[in-house]
């Protein structure tokens, strides 16, 4: 191996690496002063800052790399950050970490040491860590890691002198961290075949090869020549043998090593207790306390706020008072008086008119509901609750044969099913992707739909409970059955949990306003198009024919034939269909049982057009059409069964 700290152009190089927001730039500015240059890294659009400094009479060039979370890059910035480490031949690599999140950031330190880079660990923002009661034994960490470690709060100039001294005194030391025996054996199988000269340690390259890193594959191909094929074959064997949990095992092993390293290094101040956020975080992920907490979030956040306030108070005001009592009568009267053409009157203020249906549904019914839903959603999201929810439901997912990673698209599906369908591509096996797509299509209502359904059902005692029970039951049943039909491996799940915090009003406001803007730009036009199609269908008789065709189905569900129109428009957007049900209910056309049956069936019914198109793009025509048919058949079968059950038992 060539030395990593050789001089380049008379100046030794100091490279700063670390996650975003750990104070890298502050360290860079403190070391270099005012004279720095910012330019794109050659061949990329990623900016890299360079500056100079003199320490103990020696001149250094300092490079501030873009934020990176791991040596295995995902983004362009991380790729550039890694290229700098590979190509710039640093004298010292300063890994800047946030003292408060040492456990989360230390795995990257392990990766850097493993790669044979000349690492110096800078535990920054230590003042904040101390303020919350943490005590970090820097000397012990230095000893355990085998590299120089400096504790600092560079923003306050604390530790800067020690950092400069550590750079001046830097002498590369080697430390090795052992993984579990089986993993070590596999690393050995790959490194045993590597004989080329590399700047990085073969052990680190082998691990990256096993994780399918394309750049490292090219590097090894160039370094090994004819031997490369044999190495690739060995890597393929290892990857195949460990196809279920390779990435997870490596991450968990690094976590285990870090836990051991931090044992005795980080402690809480005497008498200090874990912060409230930490205790709450643990409670949200423990099934015994997490489920009641989830129910509380659902009850106050969604049922009371969205259902009670949004769908009750605000909709009553906008729809019941402003539209029904003032705007609609005025618009209809004006058109009756001034527009002689029946078709145009129907188009604007008719039964399915652009104003009387499209604008009224969008502005007076759905907007207040999704608006309040977006506020609640943004608050929950900003508190960091969703990753914890993912951990909480992971156990259930394992039962139904899904990788815990599928929790992510499922939770995201509550925001938008369309995007969540795209995210299913991150799942490791085809089986999991199909299963997750099916469940998303069937039983995960998107934010807009869930808001409207909540609003619709919150006025009928017991209806919401039946809706939730039906959806949960179907989700679990279909998941279990599908897992039986499509057996396969069940990979494990691992994810980093970000800190929990109080939602910031600014974030909640911005997220809510941004989503409202999205709603108006993307959903509102769809409502208008649906209104025009319904109007055209009414005038041409096609809608009447379709309603007649669906009448027997509606009859089987115990629903009046007018409900068919809500199902037809529900195909465009399910929330639009739900607004149709709202209209029918307020006009007294639906009993509590009928309302519940219609809401459950509509929720399970085919997804919106956008989701279907994305599903086709991701899974192909064949799978999409099968899912479409299965979901439609299931939705109506469940509706039929639920109607019978509710009538027999008299629950509602």
């Amino acid at each position, binding site marked *: 191996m060539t030395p990593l700290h050789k001089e380049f152009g008379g100046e030794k190089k100091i490279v700063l690496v670390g*996650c*975003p*927001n750990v104070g890298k730039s502050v360290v860079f500015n403190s070391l270099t002063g005012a004279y720095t240059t910012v330019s794109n890294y050659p061949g990329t*659009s990623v900016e890299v800052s360079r500056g100079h400094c003199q320490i103990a009479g020696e001149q250094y060039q300092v490079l501030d790399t873009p*934020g990176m*979370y791991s040596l295995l890059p*995902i*983004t*362009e*910035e991380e790729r550039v950050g890694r290229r700098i480490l590979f190509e710039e031949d640093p004298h010292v690599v300063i890994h800047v970490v946030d003292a408060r999140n040492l456990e989360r950031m230390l795995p990257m330190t392990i990766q850097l040491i493993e790669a044979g880079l000349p690492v110096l660990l800078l535990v920054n923002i230590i003042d904040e860590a101390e303020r919350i009661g943490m005590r970090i034994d820097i000397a012990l960490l230095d000893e355990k890691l085998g590299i120089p470690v400096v504790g600092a709060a560079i923003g306050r100039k604390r530790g800067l002198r020690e950092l400069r001294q550590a750079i001046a005194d830097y002498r590369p030391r080697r430390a090795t961290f052992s993984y579990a025996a089986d993993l070590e054996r596999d690393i050995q199988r790959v490194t045993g075949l590597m004989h080329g000269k590399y700047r990085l340690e073969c052990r680190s390259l082998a691990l990256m090869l096993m994780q399918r890193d394309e750049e490292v594959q090219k590097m090894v191909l160039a370094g090994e020549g004819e031997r490369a094929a044999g190495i690739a074959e060995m890597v393929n064997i290892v990857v195949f043998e460990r196809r279920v949990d390779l990435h997870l095992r490596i991450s968990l092993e690094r976590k285990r090593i870090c836990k051991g390293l931090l044992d005795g290094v980080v402690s809480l101040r005497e008498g200090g207790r874990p912060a409230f956020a930490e205790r709450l975080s643990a409670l949200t992920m423990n099934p015994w306390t997490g489920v009641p907490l989830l129910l509380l979030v659902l009850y106050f956040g969604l049922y009371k706020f969205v259902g009670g306030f949004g769908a009750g108070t605000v909709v009553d005001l906008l729809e019941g008072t402003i539209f029904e009592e003032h705007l609609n009568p005025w618009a209809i009267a004006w058109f009756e008086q001034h527009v002689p053409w029946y078709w145009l009157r129907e188009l604007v203020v008719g039964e399915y008119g652009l104003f009387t249906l499209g604008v009224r549904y969008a502005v007076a019914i759905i907007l207040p509901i999704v608006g309040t839903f977006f506020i609640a959603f943004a608050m929950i*999201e*900003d508190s*960091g609750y*969703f*990753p914890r929810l993912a951990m909480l439901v992971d156990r259930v997912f394992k039962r139904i044969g899904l990788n815990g990673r599928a929790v*992510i*698209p499922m*939770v*995201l599906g509550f*925001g*938008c099913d*369309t*995007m969540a*369908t*795209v*995210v299913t591509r*991150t799942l490791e096996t085809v089986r999991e992707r199909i299963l997750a797509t099916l469940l998303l299509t069937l039983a995960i209502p998107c934010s807009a739909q869930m808001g409207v359904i909540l609003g619709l059902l919150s006025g009928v005692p017991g209806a919401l409970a039946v809706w939730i029970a039906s959806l949960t039951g179907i989700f679990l049943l279909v998941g279990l059955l599908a897992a039986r039909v499509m057996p396969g491996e069940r990979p494990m799940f691992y*994810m*980093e949990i*970000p*800190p929990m915090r109080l939602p910031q009003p*600014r974030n909640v*406001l*911005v*997220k809510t*306003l*941004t*989503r409202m*803007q*999205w709603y108006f*730009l*993307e959903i509102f*036009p769809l409502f208008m198009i649906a209104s025009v199609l319904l109007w055209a269908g009414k005038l041409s008789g096609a809608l009447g024919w379709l309603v007649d065709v669906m009448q027997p189905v509606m009859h089987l569900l115990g629903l009046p034939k007018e409900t068919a129109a809500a199902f037809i428009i529900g195909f465009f957007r399910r929330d639009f269909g739900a607004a149709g049900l709202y209209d029918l209910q307020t006009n007294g056309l639906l009993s509590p049982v009928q309302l519940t049956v219609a809401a459950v069936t509509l929720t399970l019914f085919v997804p919106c057009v*956008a*989701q279907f*198109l*994305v599903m086709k*793009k991701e899974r192909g025509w064949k799978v999409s059409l099968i899912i479409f048919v299965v979901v439609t058949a299931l939705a109506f079968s469940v509706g039929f069964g639920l109607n019978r059950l509710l009538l027999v038992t008299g629950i509602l």
Partner: protein
Amino acid sequence: MKCTFCEHELTPEMLREEGCGACMGGCRKIHCPYCGQENPVVPEFFDKLIKRNTRERK
């Protein structure tokens, strides 16, 4: 800005990366490369408004 799901830092450059194609008039969301979450991009208007308010308060 940070991803609202996994808290990884996101950059505006990521907006140019592939969207799901479902949005009319182009993508206005950053799809987090780490977890897939779609993060709404804050419109310039809101951003300016909030910055102005913050300045005035100072």
